[in-house]
């Protein structure tokens, strides 16, 4: 029975480890923070992997090695070892807290500081079950919105409740697909009109809940041209699984062209 345990625990351990390392599961990173985040992830993976292997392999080994046999020596009668406990505790504390502190700089950079000047402004609005993106237009100012003007079934400007009587809203562009220029910081302001949604773009290593009643500002910088999928990551109702969207990261030139075309459509 000890041998059976050893074999099963070791096989489970090695198979699990194999699949962690055999494939790079993380989606291809396409934002400035992705490099650091993936590095931190892999560091954590290595440390936890070593602990995982050490603990599981010794568990299996002990089960087999110390199985009761007629020839087994008497057990080591001991109530523990304080010195070992202290060493173990100190090491774990240093390791866990250290890992944590290392990871906090990017978190702080993204969330403690506002976006720099010159960032592209986009307002992201979530509703059951669609995302809308609003650009302030040439004036750089978002026009007012009002819940009284919202008509989610109409889509576009009406869905986000744009107040067309506000001069600042005249050049606002509302779309169902997000366009971003590459290598420029994006200042996202995130809101929801009904329930909680979560704006998740795996390739950009970006996620943030959109909470009704809050307007959450965050920033990130896409670094590779491409099309990236948005998946809602907070349970928002029966259509949660299809609350899907696209981010197109394009060159600055293409972005300007795209925005100008939207402005022209609007006139």
């Amino acid at each position: 029975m000890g041998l059976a345990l050893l074999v099963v625990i070791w096989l489970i351990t090695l198979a699990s480890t194999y699949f962690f390392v055999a494939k790079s599961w993380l989606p291809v990173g396409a934002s400035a923070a992705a490099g650091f985040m993936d590095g931190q992830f892999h560091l954590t993976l290595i440390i936890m992997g070593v602990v995982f292997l050490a603990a599981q392999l010794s568990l299996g080994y002990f089960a087999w090695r110390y199985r009761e046999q007629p020839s087994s020596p008497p057990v080591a009668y001991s109530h523990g070892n304080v010195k070992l406990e202290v060493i173990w505790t100190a090491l774990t504390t240093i390791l866990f807290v250290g890992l944590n502190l290392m990871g906090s700089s990017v978190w702080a950079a993204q969330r403690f500081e506002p976006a720099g000047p010159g960032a592209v402004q986009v307002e992201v609005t979530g509703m059951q079950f669609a995302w809308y993106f609003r650009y302030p237009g040439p004036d750089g100012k978002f026009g007012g919105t009002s819940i009284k003007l919202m008509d989610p079934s109409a889509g576009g400007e009406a869905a986000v409740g744009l107040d067309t009587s506000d001069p600042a809203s005249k050049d606002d562009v509302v779309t169902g697909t997000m366009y971003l220029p590459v290598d420029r910081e994006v200042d996202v302001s995130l809101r929801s009109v009904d329930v909680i949604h979560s704006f998740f773009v795996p390739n950009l290593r970006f996620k943030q809940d959109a909470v009704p009643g809050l307007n959450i500002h965050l920033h990130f910088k896409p670094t590779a041209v491409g099309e990236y999928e948005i998946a809602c990551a907070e349970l928002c109702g029966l259509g949660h699984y299809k609350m899907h969207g696209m981010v197109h990261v394009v060159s600055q030139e293409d972005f300007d062209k795209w925005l100008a075309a939207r402005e022209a459509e609007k006139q």
Partner: protein
Amino acid sequence: MATSATAHAHAGPQGFIRKYIFSLDHKVIGIQYFFLALTAVFVGMFLSLLMRIHLIAPLASLPLVGEIKPETYLSLLTMHGTIMVFFVLTTAPQGGFGNYFLPIQIGAPDMAFPVLNMLSFWTTFVGFVVIIAAFFVQGGAPLHGWTGYPPLSAVQSAGPGEGLGADLWITSIAIFCLASLMGALNFLTTTLDMRAKGMTMMRMPLTVWSWFITAILGLLAFGVLLSAGILLLMDRNLGTSFYVPQIIVNGQIMLHKGGSPLLWQHLFWFFGHPEVYIAILPGMGVTSQILSTFSRKPIFGYKAMVYAMLAIGFFGFMVWGHHMFMSGMSPYSAFAFSLLTMCIGVPSAIKTFNWLGTMYKARIRFQTPMLYAIGFVSLFVSGGLSGPFLAQPVLDIQLHDTYFVVGHFHLIMGVAAIFGMFAATYYWFPKMFGRMMNESWGRIHFFITLIGTYAIFMPMHYLGMAGGTRRYSQYTEVAYLQKLMPIHQFMTYAAIITIAAQFIFVINLFWSMFKGPKASDNPWEATTLEWITATPPPHDNFGGVTPVVHNGPYEYGVPGAARDFVMQTDPPVASSGH
């Protein structure tokens, strides 16, 4: 203490109803809790089977239930989570085994408040009936997940099941909170006030410590959830706005104004995180007990184990914010919560270290309880080590609300806790029912369940790393998710096999109850007080004798002793009490 025990004594009951239905005997109540949880776990497991099948065959029409629509899937996951967390993970380890064995292990004739004990079981039972009723009302069960985040859970028009079904869901949880508060008071009073002579706190078995600390957590956590639930009911039915700001749902502007959805999350997780430990601490207790017994060695670091559990309980109340890194909560507080969360990993690591230390240079016997205790350690390690990923806000950005989280909590608070219950069942069954369970079937059940469990929950980590979002009824609408379908298929097949294997356990349980070989009073040659009394124990637990304790709970392999174990009531050994 002996006098307080006498004061609590009551005559043995007469008649079927007082003896088996409305019994005041903590042992009968423990068995009632056990069977309630057994019923609940099969309901919860059946729901997960339907979910797993739907995930790989979204359009299939299933026997009994028909086609599963996206909203049906969400109801299934809501009810699966709620039933499992409350009526299984909280009910069986504490209400079931705790009720039966805490009084016996401390040498008491019963719980401190037998009537309250009966009341808390029947209140729990009513809670279970109410939540099951949610399936059968108009609109069906709610779809807001077991975490019930408003506004989704607070607005009737936000989705199917958010009408009467959601009200029943909250009501059931509120009833459960009341029952748990009653239970917690009883456990605390009993442990503090009814220990036998010589049963000092530091001679209590680690199982007793785990139930005691769990009761403290329950007392502090369930009151908060109860209040939060009542506020949610008011938002839903009385037009208040605790959790709901001005919103527009289905084109309809709601009358709410100024509420905060985050308030619910804070209150819910202030309960929800300690709840994780409510589920797992008794499993840690029973694993320690069994590892020591079957290793024929004292537990490694008894005091460290006690302090580690106390530390887990203490820190457990200061880490709730790690569920909310992505919620819009202040990023500064995320930093603090993250640091405290890392700290809670330390006592957990100490426990693992001590379990391995207990097995080191031991003489291990491999009856089924021991297999499950070893399985518990393995799952606890695997589930625990994904914690430090999720505790880092910067990694949580990618992993939050993906299957990585689902894999993490299922391993550590789901199946590890379930393995604790299996270990407890195989270990204490002889004492509870007077017969032994079948060993061969126990072993087969163990190996299929262990391998199956890993086959279901390990791939969830890979899925989550790849960005696989949770609570999606179908992976067909998003291109990158579609590519991950083979992982879902593998997990579903593993789940079907693992679920089928659970019938081995049930058959073994009921067959052994009537046909198993008779058990002796101390079949495992264990040391704690439940093994000095008759099998099954008499109504007052010790047949009119009050045990006097001289030794610590895990005196195995004492040099110079006549046997390789020294009972707690045996004459004192030199090192007793450490």
